[in-house]
């Protein structure tokens, strides 16, 4: 890969050890893909995770004096203060989370602790070159927004945010953004839950590639697209997709395939989605707790939960959680959704991913969620997967209405 004089100097450590390490990683990636050069990026999203590998790298950069040159947002870890009051989180795991969060602060990242930063904290525009890790973020940014990003790891995205550049390879090149598989969607898509099942099916069916979806008549909404992205990039490695007519980069199937004839066509009916739904259930037992917000719920989804819980009580034997970003919670507080949910006995938590050690109390329990991704990475014993409305229904004890 060709390096400019300044890039060479960075690689030689002339601007400090932290930026040197970041550059070393980017050069290794660029060389691996035979990138001709590096290109500037305008923003990055590091899928911080509060795990040891994550801690090692961000501390290496922070201790070496590195600072983000472009806005770089962070993924949820967990709300340490909040959870430590409630549960007995193992000390060593809590220490990793604390150090990770401190190091991201030290490198000057936007401390969003949100997995949907493209909605409010760090928003790319059409055609922007960026480096976004996180399962929903990569495909959302490429497909829904039409910005350019590769399927980054947390560390390569952070390194790109530090340097302000990324090697030019993969999805930064137009020819590589060509559709690979045509999906004819004949399944009924009512809400984001159906889109999660569809995403899960598509990712699993091809594993890797750029799916092009046809047959979708009603324009998908934000929540539906977020969930399609998160799930297809969990069951598979889907960095980009097209729904011609609804996503921005191609208005026709032909355009999505850049003029080529699709080599593979897969039809998806209600039967396939039902298959995914059944595959992910591990029990039909009563849920001990209900966990929503993977990916982080939007204000609209929190509003839906509040509407369904209004005037009701959560069953005393189960607990009810909604995960969201700090910015969304601010508005949920302001418009009264949080109050309604808390009155019913539920909790709205910020900065937290459902795949973190703070949920230790549920390790041997039965959980219910509307997220196949949450079910896939579950930190609990058994899982039931249901749509939002049914999760709320299961949490509510009708008796509670009369005897609060």
């Amino acid at each position, binding site marked *: 890969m060709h390096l400019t004089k300044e890039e060479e100097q960075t690689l030689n450590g002339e601007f400090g050890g932290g930026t040197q390490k970041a550059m*070393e*990683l980017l050069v*290794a*990636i660029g*060389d*691996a*893909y035979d990138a001709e050069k590096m290109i500037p990026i305008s923003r990055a999203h590091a*899928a911080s*995770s509060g*795990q*040891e*590998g*994550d801690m*090692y*790298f961000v501390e290496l950069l922070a201790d070496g004096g590195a600072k983000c040159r472009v806005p770089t947002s962070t993924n949820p870890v967990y709300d340490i203060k909040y959870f430590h009051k409630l549960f007995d989180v193992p000390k060593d795991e809590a220490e990793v989370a604390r150090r990770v969060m401190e190091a991201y602060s030290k490198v000057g990242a936007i401390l969003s602790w949100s997995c949907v930063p493209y909605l409010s904290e760090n928003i790319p525009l059409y055609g922007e070159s960026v480096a976004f*890790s996180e*399962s929903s973020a990569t495909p959302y940014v490429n497909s829904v927004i039409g910005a350019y990003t*590769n*399927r*980054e*790891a*947390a*560390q*390569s995205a952070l390194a790109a945010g530090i340097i302000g550049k990324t090697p030019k390879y993969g999805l930064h090149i137009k020819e590589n953004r060509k559709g690979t598989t045509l999906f004819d969607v004949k399944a009924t898509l009512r809400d984001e839950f159906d889109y999660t099942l569809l995403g899960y099916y598509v990712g699993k069916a091809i594993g890797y590639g750029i799916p092009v979806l046809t047959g979708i008549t009603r324009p998908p909404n934000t929540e539906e697209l977020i969930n399609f992205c998160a799930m297809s990039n*969990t069951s598979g*490695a889907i960095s980009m997709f097209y729904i011609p007519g609804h996503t921005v980069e191609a208005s026709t199937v032909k355009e999505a395939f850049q003029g080529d004839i699709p080599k593979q066509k897969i039809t998806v009916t209600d039967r396939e989605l039902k298959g995914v739904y059944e595959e992910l259930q591990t029990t039909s037992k009563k849920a001990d707790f209900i966990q929503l917000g993977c990916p982080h719920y939007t204000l609209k989804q929190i509003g839906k939960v509040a509407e369904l819980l209004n005037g009701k009580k959560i069953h005393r034997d189960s607990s009810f959680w909604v995960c969201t970003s700090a910015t969304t919670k601010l508005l949920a507080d302001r418009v009264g959704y949080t109050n309604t949910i808390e009155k019913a006995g539920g909790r709205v938590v910020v900065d937290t991913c459902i795949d973190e050690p703070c949920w230790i109390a549920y390790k041997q329990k039965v959980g219910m969620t509307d997220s196949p991704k949450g079910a896939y990475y579950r930190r609990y014993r058994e899982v039931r997967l249901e749509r939002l409305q049914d999760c709320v229904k299961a949490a509510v004890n009708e008796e509670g209405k009369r005897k609060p």
Partner: protein
Amino acid sequence: MKTALKCHKIIGGYGEGEALVSHEPICFYLTDPKTGIVREKTHELAGKNISNKVLVFPSGKASSVVQIDGLFKLASHNLAPKAMIVKDVETVLIVSAFIAKVPLVDRLEKDPFKAIKTGDLVRVDANKGTVVVERHKS
């Protein structure tokens, strides 16, 4: 018998050891971080130990968070492979090897699954772009 082959450096460094060949992609999170034994029951390497081996495999798999953490944990117990020879690279595997400081190469001038067999002594010099395979007649 000794064969010297050219390769393409991804993560630099030198590592030598006994070869362990896997025809299936590998997820490091599914190995025991305290022993290096592959725990994934359906994997062809199930029950085999990858630590201190020169690992030959087609590619990595699984999400970035678990893959990177998996190899990092092995490395912090000194149980990472000595070097890795792969057919297809992707960003996550590159980051994993970078963080765990394991030499990683691809584009071996011969098909690695034909040139290397489990048990061969393999020397990987990623910086020089060479792989030396030594096989003793049994």
